[in-house]
């Protein structure tokens, strides 16, 4: 064995450190946070959160420089069999930036919450950073193996974060449910991957694409493989009917983590799904399109309908994010249609960006309000506008954006989704567009329920003392609100991100 190994010339892979810099910074950062946490005094644990924040911003720097340098597709690890498995292109960079920024906002939101809850701060941030590292890797992964590893990388810390409220039985329940179902889903996905590998003989996505129909016939095994893989990610993005974990976990987890899960983790799932759909399955549109169509339609409809009946704001947001997930899935139903792919990709990316900003903002308000009301009930928002006008207005802005009302960011995201499916001009496209249009109204109904509480209802217990919002949350609010408005008024800023000919073009062949 050894002889045979020696017989082969070992050529070390070329490493493009610049392209790999974000991951390296993150990895280093999380080690530092872990170490610092070990040595600083209990009272100075706030340092960890600051460090975590700097780590994320630090990781953002290479992302920006990479983006500025050029639009060549980079292969951080290139070598004989490595080229193409881990890729840094525009698509990856945008999403990395998104994950890092979302992570930063989550850190801002967490600082006060975690500190007050007397949780283990160091571990918390380490896990958060690890999960973000997984996401950042996910954005670049173009191989079944790396996708799987990235997925687990981002998931396993997330399981632990979900159960962070150790002494709270709800927290335990949330963590356990998330964990078991997550693992189960990834097991199913893995089974699908194994089959996919079996029928194509490769794990490299760009090779799977051409190979998937190379044998001429599209067999049942192909279908099974594709279906199982999609299911795995559908779970991650909590698409109906793989959504049940979401409300429970969202409710049980600490609110910043809920925000993190509903935005970043979900986005990672979408990223993987999008990559797969565009790179690995371009010829399998017959399989995944109806499947995703059902997922999208069911997600928006059932998510909305279930959200209507919620009384707990976090659960409502859980269902809302399920329904928003349906909207993000919507363009993917036409990803394989000639000419519409580009629109679809743009739509997904733009939607993710806008949704991240808006939803994080909404959760920031929820955290700020919960500091006073100590309640997750929607009715606890009664009269918010009268005693905390700024929070009231901000929440209104976020809700309106989620409802898709111009000129807030949400409208452009929804618009892009509609545009993509109509661009396809197929019957499926029109059908989902109509379903989505109706769902927009249903969604507006429960968003507006919250607005109604904020503006029109009296303060429930008459306690109208103003809310003091910690500066870190204020910062989070400013970032998210600014992004929400700017993206709505000048959507071109983010619209350009979607010019991703590479993913569909070069890699899609």
């Amino acid at each position, binding site marked *: 064995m050894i002889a045979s190994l020696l017989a082969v010339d070992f050529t070390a892979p070329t490493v493009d450190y610049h392209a790999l810099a974000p991951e390296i910074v993150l990895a280093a950062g999380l080690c530092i946070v872990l170490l610092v946490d070990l040595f600083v005094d209990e009272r100075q644990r706030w340092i960890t959160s600051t460090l975590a924040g700097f780590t994320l911003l630090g990781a953002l720097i290479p992302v920006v420089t990479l983006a500025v340098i050029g639009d060549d597709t980079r292969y951080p690890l290139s070598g004989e069999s490595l080229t193409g498995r881990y890729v840094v292109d525009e698509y990856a960079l945008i999403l990395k930036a998104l994950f890092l920024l979302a992570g930063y906002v989550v850190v801002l939101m967490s600082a006060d919450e975690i500190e007050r809850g007397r949780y283990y701060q160091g571990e918390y941030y380490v896990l958060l950073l690890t999960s973000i590292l997984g996401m950042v890797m996910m954005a670049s992964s173009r191989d079944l193996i790396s996708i799987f590893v990235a997925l687990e990388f981002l998931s396993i810390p997330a399981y632990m974060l979900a159960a962070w409220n150790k002494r709270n039985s709800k927290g335990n329940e949330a963590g*356990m*449910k998330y964990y*078991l*179902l997550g693992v*189960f*889903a990834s097991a*199913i996905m893995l089974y699908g991957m194994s089959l996919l590998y079996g029928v194509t003989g490769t794990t490299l996505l760009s090779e799977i694409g051409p190979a998937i129909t190379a044998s001429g016939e*599209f*067999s*049942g095994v*192909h*279908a*099974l493989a*594709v*279906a*199982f893989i999609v*299911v795995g990610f559908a*779970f991650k993005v909590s698409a109906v*009917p*793989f959504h*049940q*974990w979401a409300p*429970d976990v969202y409710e049980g987890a600490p609110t910043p983590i809920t925000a993190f899960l509903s935005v970043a983790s979900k986005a990672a799932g979408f990223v993987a799904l999008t990559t797969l759909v565009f790179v690995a399955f371009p010829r399998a549109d*017959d*399989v995944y399109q*109806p*499947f995703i169509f*059902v997922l999208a339609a069911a997600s928006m409809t*059932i998510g*909305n*309908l*279930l*959200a*209507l*009946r919620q009384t707990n704001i976090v659960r409502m947001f859980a269902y809302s994010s399920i329904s928003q997930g349906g909207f993000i899935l919507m363009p993917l139903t036409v990803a394989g249609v000639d000419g519409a792919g580009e629109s679809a990709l743009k739509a997904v990316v733009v939607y993710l960006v806008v949704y991240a900003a808006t939803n994080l903002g909404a959760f920031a308000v929820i955290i700020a309000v919960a500091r006073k009301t100590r309640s997750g009930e929607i009715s606890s928002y009664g009269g918010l506008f009268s005693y905390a006008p700024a929070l009231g207005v901000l929440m209104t802005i976020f809700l309106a954006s989620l409802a898709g009302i111009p000129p807030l960011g949400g409208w452009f995201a929804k618009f892009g989704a509609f545009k993509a499916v109509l661009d396809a001009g197929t019957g499926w496209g029109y059908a989902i567009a109509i379903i989505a249009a109706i769902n927009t109204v*249903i969604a507006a*109904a429960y968003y507006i329920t919250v607005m109604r509480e904020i503006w029109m209802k009296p303060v429930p217990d008459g306690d109208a003392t103003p809310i003091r919002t910690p500066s870190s949350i204020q910062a989070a609010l400013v970032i998210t609100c600014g992004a929400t408005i700017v993206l709505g008024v000048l959507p071109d800023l983010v619209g350009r991100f979607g010019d991703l000919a590479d993913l569909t073009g070069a890699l899609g062949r």
Partner: protein
Amino acid sequence: MLAHVNDSAGWFLEHAWLIPVVPVIGFVVIILFGKRMPMKGSEVGIASMVGALVLSIGTAYQWIQRVDAAHGGHDEGSAIARGIAGFGRSLSAAASGEESTYVAPVIKSWTWWQSGGLEFGLGQHIDGLAVMMLILVAFISVLVQIFSLEYVRGDRRYTHFFAALTLFSGGMLTMVLAENMVQLILGWELMGLCSFMLIGHWWEDKANSRAALKAFFTVRVGDVGLLVGTAIVFFGANAFAVDNFGSNGFSIQAINAWAMSGEASHDVLLWGSVALFIACIGKSGQFPLHTWLPDAMAGPTPVSSLLHSSTMVVAGVFLVARVYPVFWEGLSIPGSSVNFIVLIGGITTLIAAFLAFVQNDIKKVLAYSTVSQLGLMMMGLGAGAWIAAVFHIFTHAFFKCCLFLCAGSVAHSGSHHSFDMKKDMGGLRKAMPVTFACWMIATAALTGFPFLAGFWSKDEIIATVGKNGYDVFFYLGFVSAFLTAAYMTRATYLTFFGTPRGAAAGEHHGDEHGEEHEQADDEAHVDALVHAGAHATAGHDAHDAHGHALAHDAHGHDAHDAHDAHDAHGHDDHHGAHHGPHESGKLLLVPICILAFLSIVAGFLQAPAFGESFEKLKLWVEPTTAPIATDDLLVGGFGQSVAVAPRAAAEGEKVCGYVAPSPGQACIFPAVTHPPFSWAKAGVATIIVFAAYAISFALCSLVYGTRRNKLQGLTGRNKLLGAGHRFLVNKYYLDDLYEKVVVRAVAYPISQAAYWINQRVLDGTVDAVGKGGRRTGEWIYRYVDQGAIDGLAVNGSGKAASGTGGALRPLQSGKVNQYGALLFGAAALGALVLVIVNI
């Protein structure tokens, strides 16, 4: 013969459009500054009406000059001279009895607005008919306003009253000289508005405001016809008008020419004329929409006299006369023996006359008389008696206005503001000699007493109707004449003859009521003082009157009491010394006397019995009935005067209205017939009238006299007569039909039903969708989201488990397992379907 006149038609003719402008300005001035003026704005009203009258007289004078000039100047001479002068005429107009000289109307138009290339104009269309109406309206308005000075003095809304009165006349004047249909509608609706304000002048009383509402609303029902008819005629005539006249389908001149041109589709004309006539039914109180008119008596008497003599109600008749060719052609007036207009007119004249017999309110008698006379006019128009009907408008205005003012005078000075002939009148001839004399003259004129105004116009209508082959209506005319004479005799008897009753006997109106409401009086006085303070518009010591007024108001008396009460507001002249009947003051009598005088002489404008020189009205008013070269009709463009030189029409027979004009020619008026005056027919009519006087007077003195006899209370004893009487008293139950059935149905069940549908069906659907969304959410959660788990996973896996091994049976999955089951189940299902589909 070519009888050119100067291109300029004369200042007054050119500027006739100023006539309505004057009162409208007057209205604005009164509204803005009236209250601060020494006479509370009435002086402005009267001044503006006098201004309008002066302008109208000028216009009339110049129009007559123009007509005469068109006839070659030979008409300048006297009738005798004209009779002798048999030379120098190339056109034997007089000899044939048919006028064929074209006197161009003075048409002007300014663009008011335009839409899609279509210009809507405002302007004037001055021809004989317009001139006659202008002078009539302005003149009557002046008199009525003078009368009102005294009559409504001290009223709460004295200023508003004059403002509305002035605007009302302005509306009528606008309509009369309308160049086009839109302008006509403008004036028409303006009048409607003012009638609403005037009839409801004393709106504190619900009955009055109801009457006002009813008037406006009923007329509005007819207005649907006006809008639709205008649209029909517009689109019918537009192309023709554009091609030949450079105007459009609103232009009245163009409409007339189009209707006569033979190019118009008969269907369009038919529908157009029917629609327009529906408007006239509403406005002119024709059957079956006449019911508003008697109720409109709720307004102050001057309003009634103005509304029912020369304005408002004759607007419908005027409209028919104005676009007569449309009706002529649309309803095939020549050559038929019955048509829509004549039928409605005939019915109206009869049923209204019958109703007049059972009225106790003197103004209502006059109101039904008006309806009846309007029916007669319509009948005449429908039967081709154009000039006769127009003439009847003219004469009727004088005597009917006179009668109303007499009634007002009686109420004002004789019956203590009661209009109830049976209760508060009788034997007033001695107390009010002047009023009585004028009333008698006007009644005689109305009933067709020989050689008075009504005699000429009414007889001419009946004669023409007979000549044109409308035999049934010819006899109906006589019946109507008989009835008119009879009910007027009854009214006269009740008012001026017999023994004085009630207020006429000098009983103080307030006394009897005061007793009735003795207990209420004190309280009412308090109210009265308060209100007097609040509303005193005239600073006189009328507390007594106020007291009664408000006592009545407060205790919900019928409409008449309220009138009285409000009338009483301003009377300082007779509350002091005596309460008995007395003659009215000069301000009231002068207008009445003038009108009485005119009731005598107005008929001689068109008294064919005395030869052609007494047929001036026809000469001045009736347009040419011969075809005219189209070039002469060309309107010179908007905003420009058309003073086309009148030119001799084509020689020959009267073709207009019977034969389409030849190319290059147009007709603007049909060749209506003019029967020669027949002494025999006039004699018959006179005999009928006298018979009616006699019979009616005899019956009245029996029924209403003091001596007891069998006739009294006959309606109570004889069932058939009783039923008839009740039928009449209830106004043929038409009011019940409208108010209790139609209006109530629309206002209550139908609108409620519509609203119910709105709330329950449409809104209910929306709400249900809203609630349904939430419920669906619940349902999905219970039966799909969680139920699927229970059903599919628990039972399913349980069953599966029981299949594989009994040992596993009892296991009961927790939520996690259920979720997992669903997860896998869905994945498997999806995969399965995909596999099946793809293989």
